[in-house]
Structures are given as structure tokens and as C-alpha cells.
């Protein structure tokens, strides 16, 4: 493995760069390859290109979404939790910042230990502050326990998370009734139910024996971007070096099943779409595109 990594010109990286953490950094040090991050990266950017919007944007859109949905018309108050990881803290920070800008009052902020089984202390504290909503920034390890305990302690509060809680196994882990009503987001347009990708989804299910998420499609497109960059570089008669491929990826303008793909000067995809979902009756349902402004 060591040899091909050092020779690689482009890496398609499936995990969020910071969340990949220990595994990503040693590999990054061994290669000067141009990492193409397939899923949303954390703040600050960990690779030159991202085929899905930054989580900074995701947190912002989510806060917009919550403020605009009318759930908060009467003095919105929210409490923010994170799971202590780079991803969770980052997205919770982003949400909190934008929520405050939009006039949503953040009544408190605390950190969950993902390995802690009991969250009743913090949930009782939150209940005492009587917020309208609870936002959780983090992944499933804490969410799997947070959902049933939040359902028990504060069943009527609006609850939301990021794509960290967009996990098709969540009802199985926490119980259908516990995840009912939770909002979550994905840094991607709603793709899996779009008619234009029906054939792709059918083939994915047949080959992978599981349902795809939107990020499976963005991952597919990320590799497609790499292939397109390689093709353009080769057709231009340039050697397939990391520098040339980086420049080619920067100049990408391709259509794809997620729409047109092009990158800004920062390496972020130009079309920043964040979709909002809600868990209903044990299934995740698309709600809308989160407003950017």
C-alpha cells in the first residue's frame, strides 16, 4: 500500500478530512497527491477540492432553515450540543454562529462524551432552560443514546442534527419513536429519489446490496471528476503529474447526475446545496433545500 500511495497523483478521500483524523494525516504526509475530498470537509479545509459543500455552509444553511421554517416565530431559543469531535464541534460552532446572526437565541452549549451512556444530566439541565429546540452537532455514537433519552426527558422540543445523524440505521439503534421528528441535513441536493438517477440507484442497490445515500452519488461524481481531469490532461499532451492534474481539476466544468460541477478558488464546489430531511415513522423524508440567505 505504501508504494502506490506515494505514487498516487490524486486521492479520492471518502471521509471527512478531520474526522478521518489519525488515518488521513499519515497517508497525507507520505504523498504529495492532490486530495479530492468526496464528502464535506471540516473547517479549515483539509484538501484542495471538495465535491460537496463545506460543513461550514451546512451549519449555516441549517440555521437558516430552522429560522425560516417558522418553527421559531415566537422568540426562538435553542440549546446546542456537540460530541467533542472535530466534526461535531465544527458544525455546532457553525450552527451556533449563524443561528445567533439570525436572531435565534442560543441559551447554552455543552459537550457530550460519546462513550458516556447517560445523558440525563445534560438533558435535565436543558429542560430547565426550556428551549424551543435542541441542536446536536456530531455523529451516531452519541446520537444513538441522545435520541431515546431526549425523547424521554424533553419529548416536545424540536430536535435537529447535521448529516451525522443521517444514518439509515438510526431507528434500529435508537428506536423509531425516539428519532421521530428529528431534522437532519445533507450537503448535497436530494438525489437518490430523483427520476434521473433511478437507473443508477437500481444498479447501486444490485451491486452493493444496500441503499445509497446522496453521498454515494457525490462520491461517484468525485471519481468522475478525477477521470475527466485525467482525460483532459492527457488530451492536452501534458504528463499526468500531480501539478497538472491539480490544475485540471481546478478548471473542471462537467455535468453530472448531481448537476454541474465546478470549483471556486478555494476548491469548494460552486453549487452549494444543502438539503433538509426529517425522520418520520422510522424513515427519512426529504423536506426542502435549505435557504442560503
Amino acid at each position, binding site marked *: 500500500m505504501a508504494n502506490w500511495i506515494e505514487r498516487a497523483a490524486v486521492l479520492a478521500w471518502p471521509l471527512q478530512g478531520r474526522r478521518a483524523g489519525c488515518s488521513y494525516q499519515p497517508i497525507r504526509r507520505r504523498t504529495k497527491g492532490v486530495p479530492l475530498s468526496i464528502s464535506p470537509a471540516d473547517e479549515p479545509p483539509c484538501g484542495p477540492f471538495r465535491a460537496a459543500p463545506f460543513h461550514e455552509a451546512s451549519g449555516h444553511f441549517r440555521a437558516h432553515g430552522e429560522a425560516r421554517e417558522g418553527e421559531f416565530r415566537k422568540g426562538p431559543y435553542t440549546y446546542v450540543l456537540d460530541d467533542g469531535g472535530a466534526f461535531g464541534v465544527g458544525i455546532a460552532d457553525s450552527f451556533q454562529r449563524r443561528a445567533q446572526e439570525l436572531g435565534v437565541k442560543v441559551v447554552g452549549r*455543552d*459537550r457530550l462524551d460519546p*462513550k458516556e*451512556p*447517560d445523558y440525563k*444530566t445534560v438533558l435535565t*439541565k436543558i429542560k*430547565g432552560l426550556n428551549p424551543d429546540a435542541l441542536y446536536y452537532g456530531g455523529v451516531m455514537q452519541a446520537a444513538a*443514546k441522545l435520541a431515546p433519552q431526549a425523547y424521554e426527558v424533553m419529548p416536545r422540543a424540536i430536535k435537529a442534527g447535521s448529516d451525522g445523524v443521517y444514518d439509515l440505521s438510526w431507528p434500529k439503534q435508537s428506536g423509531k419513536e425516539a428519532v421521530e421528528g428529528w431534522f437532519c441535513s445533507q450537503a448535497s441536493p436530494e438525489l437518490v429519489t430523483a427520476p434521473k438517477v433511478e437507473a443508477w440507484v437500481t444498479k447501486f442497490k444490485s451491486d452493493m446490496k444496500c441503499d445509497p445515500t446522496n453521498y454515494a452519488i457525490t462520491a461517484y461524481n468525485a471519481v468522475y471528476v478525477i477521470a475527466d481531469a485525467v482525460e483532459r490532461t492527457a488530451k492536452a499532451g501534458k504528463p499526468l503529474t500531480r501539478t497538472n492534474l491539480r490544475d485540471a481539476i481546478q478548471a473542471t466544468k462537467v455535468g453530472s447526475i448531481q448537476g454541474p460541477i465546478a470549483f471556486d478558488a478555494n476548491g469548494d464546489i460552486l453549487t452549494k446545496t444543502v438539503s433538509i430531511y426529517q425522520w418520520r415513522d422510522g424513515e427519512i423524508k426529504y423536506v426542502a433545500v435549505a435557504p442560503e440567505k
Partner: protein
Amino acid sequence: MSALDVLLQQVVNGLALGMMYALLALGFTMVYGIIELINFSHFSMFMTGTFVGLVVLDLMGVTPVSASLTGLSLVGTLLVLFVVTMAVTGLLGVLIERICLRSVRRVSGTAPMITTIGVAFVLINVMLLYWGPQTQRFPQLLPNWRWPLGGAEVTFKQLVLFVVGLLLMVALWHLVRRTTLGKAMRATAQDADAARMMGIDVDRVVVLTFFLGSALAGAGSLFFGLYYGFTSYYIGYTTGLRAFTSAVLGGIGSIPGAVLGGLFIGLTQSLGGQFLGVKWTDVIIFSILISVMVFRPNGLLGAHTPQKA
């Protein structure tokens, strides 16, 4: 909720949490009290017990989504669940003692303790490899009854946890203090060679101690599953660390000390979380532990024992 209601609820939460730690600390402190071994595999045994319980329930046709049980069928299910799980974890403890610990028991230094750490990691990784990293739901067999306590509330599960914890403490204390086996255990703890010379089968006493301690871990594991409604490969880590702290704080080797230490840690966790934030929990708990150790090295209820010649 008013501020007083929140405080009252946090006290209730803390007592329930503390009793969970105490349940886990009881078996741990008993093993230390008898053979002076810090058995870190005890907490992984606790984690393993939850998965044994899941298998037992599955074999009885009880799953997280099956219809709830009442009356005699509930009592019968719980009885079978506890008896089988505690027997399995008890036997697993005996197996661990026989294979991994008996040969290093007389080795001075940290070799026995380090061996238990190795066993702990083996158990964690076996469970992780078999069950995977995802949280597994545990069937909720206990009814979800609740009673108001001012503006707070107490649940049936919290009451059961508290009452059972106290009963186990009393039963264990009675076993150690009032029975022939308990006398043999105390003799072995005091001086194993002298006990052997007096006709006590020390190896049998140690095996029984491990069986009891591991069976207690199994009981604790079932209460964990029934109370929280989930299990995972990592639950032994945080809960075990707090239980270890409870045992040390209360006086390692002291059965009432384990319960007192557990309740202290539970209340500290809930009240500290309320007033300072849950992110400070470990800082608070271990600061208190260090303070108690500095000023009272034997713990709150630990007795000073003279060094053996």
C-alpha cells in the same frame, strides 16, 4: 421546571447513576478485598454480560420490537435472564481466573493487573468483531411507570436500580461477614498461607470469589441494559472507569464503601454537570478522587491495614 425542581431531578438522576456505578463496583471491590487483585477485566465482563443477556432474550423470543411482557411471563423472563446471564458471566470469570490469572497470582508486582488489562482488551475486541461498532438496542422489559416528586419525577427503573443495589450490598456484606464461605474469604484475604495451613482450600475460595464477582458484573450488566435500553462494545470503558473510581473513593475492598463511593460519584456527576457543564465531569470527578486520596489514602470507608511482614 423551577430551579428547585431541576435540582431535585438532578439529585434523583445522580442517585440512580451512582447506584449503577455501585453495582459494578461491588464485584470489583469484593475481588480486590479477597485476593488484592485490581481486576480490570471486570468491566469488560460487565460489557460482555449485556451481550449474553441479548442472546438469552433472543433465544426466548424477546427482542427490542416484540410486544411488552406483563405479569408472570415478565417475572419468568427476568428470572431466566438473570440466572442464565449471571451463570455464564460467573463461569467466564472462573475460566479467566484459571487460564490467565492463577499462574501469575503469586508473581509480585503489576503482572496480574496487567494480565487483567489484556483480558479486558480481548473481550472488548471479540465483542466488537462479532457485534460490530453500532449500538445494539436492549429490550425494555421493565414498565415505564413514573411518579411525580414535586416538579421532578422518579421512574420505576430508577427505584428498582436503587433498591436492588442496596439489597445486593446487604447480601454481599452478609455473605462475607456471616457465612462460612465468607469467613474463608476473609481468612484468605488476611493471609493465604495461614488459611491454607488451617485447612482452607485457597484455590477454591479464589475461584468462588471470581465466580461471584463476575456474576455480580453480569447482574449489573442486565440492569444497565434494562435501564438504558442499549449496549455497545465500549460501555465497560466509561462506566467501568467511574465504577473503579467509586470503589477506590469508597475504600477499595469495602463493600459499603463501593456503594457510598458510587453514590458520591453519581451525585458529583449530575450536580457538577448541572452547575458547571457536563464537559467538566471527568475533571471534577478525578479532582475529587485525587483530593480524597491525598487526605485519606484508604478511601472514605477503607480501613488502614498494617503492612504484612
